[in-house]
């Protein structure tokens, strides 16, 4: 990794402050004639060189948060209904499509769970990596190809030179995900959004891809938002964690703090409901019931209907996200404790 690391090094990486600031983001979807927030009042900072994990179950809004940052909220069913996304002094929510297209895949990149559906089956992997470089960097074909090969070597595709002209179907799932990573990194993004990038992979391959991502993050000086439902993966890769439930962040803390002192009842129950490979657990906790539907959210705390610590005041009004020294919890019962 020589040419790629030097080329286009982020010039702004020494300015202070977070690289990305999401402020009161609300992303809504239309259903039955009314707009319902799938992401509600989500705020977080992503520090430079930091990995922030967004963790939660299906439908909690974690992927939609990432798609909002990328400007890829499906229209016209969905829209960003409020809030700001600050990136290098610009509010991404205010940019037009053309301006957003210039940032996407260049300064902010995203990788997805299923690499086969995001790769074009009729183009060679080499071309798909080089494509971002023609488009965003205006490189010549030969230059882009040379750099693409370099990238495929950096993501550790065995005999990359021989496989440069292969098509996606000739790669295994883990190798396709490496190709996706190479495409995402082609323009040396400052922020990488990784949406369940290892969920479809076998555990041994998952461990390799996680190690690769951590290594490249350091080499490229990137910041990463890592979306997952797997608390084991969170523990392995994150610096900080935001736990999401029903469209809201219910708890945010450093990874050590969160696992040591899970404070929101949802976080705590979630941690006690995972069977562990490293120890015997006598009792497995469950969370009764299921996540409320987007069009029938409870008026107070959204977790209240399933919460063992529920009190009358929980159902009266939505609790604020409150706390100190970086550990914030959206729970009126636990916040006072």
């Amino acid at each position, binding site marked *: 990794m020589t040419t790629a690391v030097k080329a286009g090094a982020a010039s702004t990486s020494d300015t202070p402050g977070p690289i990305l600031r999401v402020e009161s983001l609300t992303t809504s979807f239309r259903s039955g004639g009314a707009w319902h927030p799938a992401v509600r009042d989500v705020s977080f900072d992503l520090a430079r060189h930091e990995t922030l994990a967004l963790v939660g*179950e*299906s439908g909690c809004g974690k992927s939609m948060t990432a798609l909002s940052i990328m400007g890829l909220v499906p229209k016209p069913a969905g829209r960003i209904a409020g809030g700001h996304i600050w990136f290098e002094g610009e509010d991404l929510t205010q940019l037009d499509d053309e301006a957003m297209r210039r940032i996407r895949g260049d300064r902010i990149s995203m990788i997805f769970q299923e690499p086969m559906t995001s790769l074009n089956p009729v183009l060679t992997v080499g071309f798909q990596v080089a494509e971002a470089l023609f488009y965003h960097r205006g490189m010549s074909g030969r230059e882009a190809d040379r750099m693409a090969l370099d990238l495929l070597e950096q993501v*550790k595709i*065995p005999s990359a030179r021989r496989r440069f002209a292969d098509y996606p179907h000739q790669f*295994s799932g*883990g*190798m396709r995900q490496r190709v996706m990573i190479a495409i995402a990194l082609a323009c040396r993004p400052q922020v990488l959004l990784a949406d369940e990038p290892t969920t479809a992979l*076998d*555990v*041994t*391959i*998952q*461990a*390799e891809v*996680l*190690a690769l991502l951590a290594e490249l993050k350091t080499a490229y000086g990137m910041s990463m938002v890592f979306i997952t*439902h*797997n*608390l*084991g*993966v*969170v*523990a*392995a890769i*994150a610096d900080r964690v935001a736990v999401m439930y029903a469209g809201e962040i219910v708890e945010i803390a450093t*990874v*050590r703090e969160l*696992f040591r002192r899970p404070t929101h009842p949802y976080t705590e*129950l*979630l*941690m006690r*409901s*995972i*069977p*562990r*490979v*490293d120890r*015997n*657990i006598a009792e*497995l*906790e*469950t*969370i*009764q019931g*299921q996540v409320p539907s987007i069009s029938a959210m409870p008026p107070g705390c959204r977790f209240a209907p399933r919460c063992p610590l529920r009190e009358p005041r929980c159902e009266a009004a939505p609790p604020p996200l409150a706390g100190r020294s970086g550990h914030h919890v959206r729970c009126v019962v636990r916040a006072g404790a």
Partner: protein
Amino acid sequence: MAEILLAVERLKKFFTQKRGFPNPETVTVRALDEISFTVNRGEAFGLVGESGCGKSTAGRCVLRLIEPDSGGVTYAGEDVLEAGKERLRLLRRKMQIVFQDPYASLNPRRMIGKALAEPMQVHGLGDSAEIDARVEALLAEVGLPPDARWRFPHEFSGGQRQRIGIARALTVSPELVVADEPVSALDVSIQSQILLLLRGLQDKHGLSYIFISHDLGVVRWFCQSIAVMYLGRIVETGPVPAIFDDPLHPYTRMLRESSPVPDPEVRVAPARIAGEVPSAVNPPAGCHFHTRCPHVMDKCRQAYPEWRMVGQGRGVACHLHGA
């Protein structure tokens, strides 16, 4: 002494496929290459391994949903593979299967009540009033509301559909349930609900399970003994505590070490030797695992290691533990 409910002996299944474009060639996938294991009555037996290792094929061959090429399956003393049509129908009352995605196995235009009644009608278990009462009892048993019988599959969430899948397997009061990745598609909080339901049924009815999974954490919690598969072969078997505390086969160890642990103080170590999972079409010569094994020796490249019992019901196929 535990009673052996199911004995599988040298079970083999190869598939032939046409692959490649534009010049297709016929290849042989060695899905099951002579695997043997036994399941005790009342026990949850885990079959673990990564995608393509043959674990699902093994589950289906036991039930003859796929006809194996050779080998033996004995259920409570009766030869399953030799059974005629009528005997097989009776055996299938004893052995049922639960799939990963029950939605794919439910008729979208049939109400849940009918889907549950059908197996009982097929097997002639009672008149319509009895079947009706049983449907109601089953819904209650798996934790679904009574009005679920009048609803269609699309009206249910993933966890509820899995409850329907379990209820349908229970309609004929089986003794052995093959559960093929039953919680893999579910969210964590729902996963634990379903695991507790399956565990409850095991305690209440003395059910035995063949529990097929890629998640070692889930298997550690749910199963009493396990077999670890790699490219169509079992590489290690034994009781759960022993296998997890002291895995003998380097592949078992690699699986355990790469499984993420929800504790930031215990960061998972990536496999020391990276490598693709080879294909079951053309498994490596000698020990199939030698291409990824950190302890590979010369003889590993030449001969597949013999199966050795190493005490306390443990067996392993690895030259490190050979004679």
